[in-house]
């Protein structure tokens, strides 16, 4: 079956559209849906904030010079302690 080149609506289409719209107009979402949604969004926002807080409170909270200095201090102390223990 070939498709028509032009899409032309007839009485069937008009009645189908009106009937479907009438059907759709009668229905609405459950009353609790909005509360459920906003609770879910708040939980998601809190989880995301906690993740961000964790990272910002550890690695990202150091300035890069602080981080390098801490690493240097740690490595030096390990080497010195090892040397002292051998002596």
């Amino acid at each position, binding site marked *: 079956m070939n*498709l*028509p080149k032009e*899409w032309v609506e007839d*009485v*069937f*289409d008009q*009645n*189908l*559209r*009106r*009937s*479907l*719209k*009438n*059907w*759709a*107009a*009668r*229905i*609405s*979402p*459950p009353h609790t*849906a*909005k509360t*459920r*949604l*906003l609770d*879910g*969004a*708040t939980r*998601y*926002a809190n989880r*995301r904030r906690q993740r961000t807080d964790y990272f910002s409170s550890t690695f990202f909270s150091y300035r890069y010079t602080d981080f390098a200095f801490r690493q240097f201090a740690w490595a030096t102390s390990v080497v010195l302690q090892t040397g002292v223990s051998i002596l």
Partner: protein
Amino acid sequence: MLTDKSLVLQLQHGSVHALGVLYDRHQNMVYRTALAITGDAEAAADLLQDTFLRLYRFADKIDPDRPLEPWLYRIVANLSYTWVKRHNRFVRSIEDVASWLGGNKKDSPASKAEEKETWLVLRQAILSLPVAQRVVVVLYYINDLSLQEIAEVLNVPEGTVKSRLFYGRQALRRYFELDGTVDLREVVYEFT
């Protein structure tokens, strides 16, 4: 009244209030689309939640300068499509067995009377379509989207939309002719 654009911008900064306003504005459209495609009120309510939670989570990927509705249509159509595919695979066989065990309910006088309700027949007619045609029929007749808009929402060529709509309409015509309870060629409905 705040525009969708300004609400999306607020959403991008994590505003739950903006999500609530957008929900109030678009909930009916999203819910009705989901319900028309799935035919299941519980699933439609879940898909409504899922669509708006995605809007919240992925707000930073949305271009505020573009209309929001096509984005919502795309999400709810895709989620509904996936739900129908999954549901058909796992539940259809159980429903068939239940129908076989319980006898054909369509033959009982009570259900006959119930089925004469126009909206029930319409619902059944829509649900009888393959899901790809059903999505296009719902977006075209209920949501008043043009063929081009549907093509953009579903990310398929316009010819494909036209073809799905054509065959969907053919199937609906046949359904109503065979069913005989509703004649959409002649009946004019009263609207509330």
